[in-house]
Each structure stands twice: as C-alpha cells, then as structure tokens.
C-alpha cells in the first residue's frame, strides 16, 4: 500500500517512536505518494471529527449514604489488604517472628524408648484393680465404724430412757403408797370413838 519503511498509518497516528519516526519523516519528505496518502488520512480523520459529541441528557452523580458506606475500620482493613508494600511488610514480619520463635525454642527432648503396650496395659489394669479393692475396703470399714457408732449411741439413748422410766414409775408408786396410807388412816380414825 505504501513504500515507506514502516507503516505509514502508524506514523500518522503517532505510534512510531525514536529512530523509526525519524526515518519515516525523512522518507515522507522524499516520497510524494506517501505525502498524498497522509493527506487522505488527514482528510478522513477531519471528516470523522465532524461528528461532534452530544451532551449527556442527564448528569450522573452519586450520593453518599452512610448505611452503604463501609466503616472507617473496614476501609482501613481493605486498604491494608490492597496495599502490596504493607502486605509484604506484614509477611516479612510474620516470617521473622516464626524464625525467632524457632530459634529461641528449647531443644526437643530425646525420643522416648519403645514401650511394651501389653505390659503397660496389664500394669494399668493391676493398679486400677488394686485401687478399686483398696477403695472398697476403706468404704466398708467406714460403714462398719459408722454402724457401730450409731448402735452405741442408740443403746445409750435407750438406757437413759429406761432410767427415766424407772424413776417415773418409782415416783408414781411412792405417791400412790402415800395416798393409800392416808386413806387407811382416815378410815381407821373414823371407826375409833372420839374421847
């Protein structure tokens, strides 16, 4: 389409740079055909620009609504996570902290020797059985002791009750005896003639 060393249309639209552009400028000065093509391109562009922009019939605008606006804390959080340098800093800090913890952590204890699980289970069973037997014996002893204490207390209480009953009976008998004596004397006195 043209004899230029580069695309004449790239040159026309300003998309050539540096030495390419300089070479093309030199070529255009010496080439009538390319100059004529540039004129046609320019006329076409001018004709297209005859179609002017229209005014927008209704302006676009946004209204701030606090209900839908993110809070300051959320904006700061988003800003943090959308910031490459801050994320990089945070990542480096976390890695440093991890390395520091690993460096300062005490050495791990030596590995435990191999354990005979069957023997361990048997030993645990034996200890559990002994503990149960011991606890049962202690509980029975506690029950026997408590029973003996309760029986002793009951016997003591019954003995005191018997003593009290015996005292009441004796008192009642003495009173009855005095009343009988008094009745007897009264009847004797009534039979004897008065001097």
């Amino acid at each position, binding site marked *: 389409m043209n004899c230029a060393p580069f695309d004449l249309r790239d040159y026309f639209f300003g998309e050539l740079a540096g030495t390419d552009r300089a070479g093309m400028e030199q070529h255009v000065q010496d080439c009538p055909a390319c100059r004529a093509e540039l004129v046609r391109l320019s006329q076409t562009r001018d004709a297209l620009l005859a179609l002017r922009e229209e005014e927008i019939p209704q*302006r676009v605008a946004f209204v701030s609504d606090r209900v839908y606006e993110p809070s300051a804390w959320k904006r700061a959080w988003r800003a943090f996570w959308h910031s490459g340098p801050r994320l990089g800093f945070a990542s480096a800090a976390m890695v440093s902290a991890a390395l520091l913890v690993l460096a300062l952590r005490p050495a791990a204890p030596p590995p435990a020797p191999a354990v005979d699980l069957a023997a361990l289970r048997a030993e645990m069973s034996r200890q559990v059985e002994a503990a149960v037997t011991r606890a049962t014996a202690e509980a029975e002893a506690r029950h026997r002791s408590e029973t003996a204490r309760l029986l002793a207390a009951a016997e003591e209480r019954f003995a005191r009750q018997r003593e009290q009953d015996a005292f009441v009976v004796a008192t009642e008998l003495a009173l009855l005896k005095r009343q009988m004596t008094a009745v007897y004397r009264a009847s004797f006195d009534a039979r004897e003639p008065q001097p």
Partner: protein
Amino acid sequence: MIFRAVEDSDLIARARKGDVESFNLLVSRWERRVYNYLLRILGNREDALDLTQDVFLKAYQNLRKLDDPSRFAPWLYRIAHNEAFSLFRKRRPESTEEVPEQADAAVTAGGTGVFPLELSLAVSRALERLSADQRETVLLKIYQGFKFEEIAGIVGAPVSTVKSRLYAALELLKEELAPVKTRGMA
C-alpha cells in the same frame, strides 16, 4: 504553597477513601465521553444513558482494584466495552460480535453548526457500514485518542488485530467520505 491542577489520580485516591464528591467530580470529567462512546456503539440514547450510569457505578465499586490510577481511562472504557457487549449478548444471544443497526436515527443526524449537515450525515452513514468491531476501534482511536496498546486492553484483542480493524475501517471510510468531503469543503 504549590498550585497545580487536580488530576484524575488525586480524585481516585480520595474516592478510594470514601469521598463520594471526589468521585462525582471524576464522573463529571468523563461522563460525556463515555456516554458518546456508548451512544455510537449502541445507537440508542436511553440505553447509552443507562449503561453510562452502570459503568460509573461499577467503576466506583471496583475503584480499589485499579492498580495504576494513571490508566483510569482505559480501565473505564474497558468497563464500558464489557457493559455494551454484555447488552448485545442479552438482546441477541446468538450473536456476540455483530451490533444491531443504529436504532436511533436522530443520533446519527446531529449537525454541529460548523460542518455541513451533509457531511455529518455522511459520517454517520459511513460509520454504520462498518462492523461493530471496526466502529468501536474507530471510536476509541479517532474520537477518544487511545493508543493501540490501550485499545487492545479495552477490547481484549491483540494490538495487531486492533490495527487491522482500524486500517480496514479507514479504507472504507476514505472511500465513503472522500466525495462528500470534497463537496462539503468546496
């Protein structure tokens, strides 16, 4: 005290902190260009306006994902491109590439007062003859002034494909517009 123009990157930084007014200022800088880009692709003012609003809403929601604020414009147009072609797919699921004919005739007939109406109509007709991909590439290069690399990022195609689309479109447009241009300028 140093005075300098408030750049898009300043507004983006403040909008990222939740300053809606900064984002509104950013919108006011770009809404007309995005609207016209969508208008030329969609050919319908209502759709273009709806999608323009959607584009800026998505831009606000994803502003923190924009790695390089200096590349805000290609990023914004990438959203607009996706929205436009998503609408095409919804309306014509069997076709993901071809764009419907320009539906709103008035869109293509807007005279400027400076250039002859005949030229403006001819440009509109010439743009309609292009494929959707070619038309979008012309819009991004001629009207929006993006670099080839930026256009490639917006439309999701290699630079070589972008150049191929643009140059093929220019060949067609040269043929379509040359006679009218000659008459209009005469």
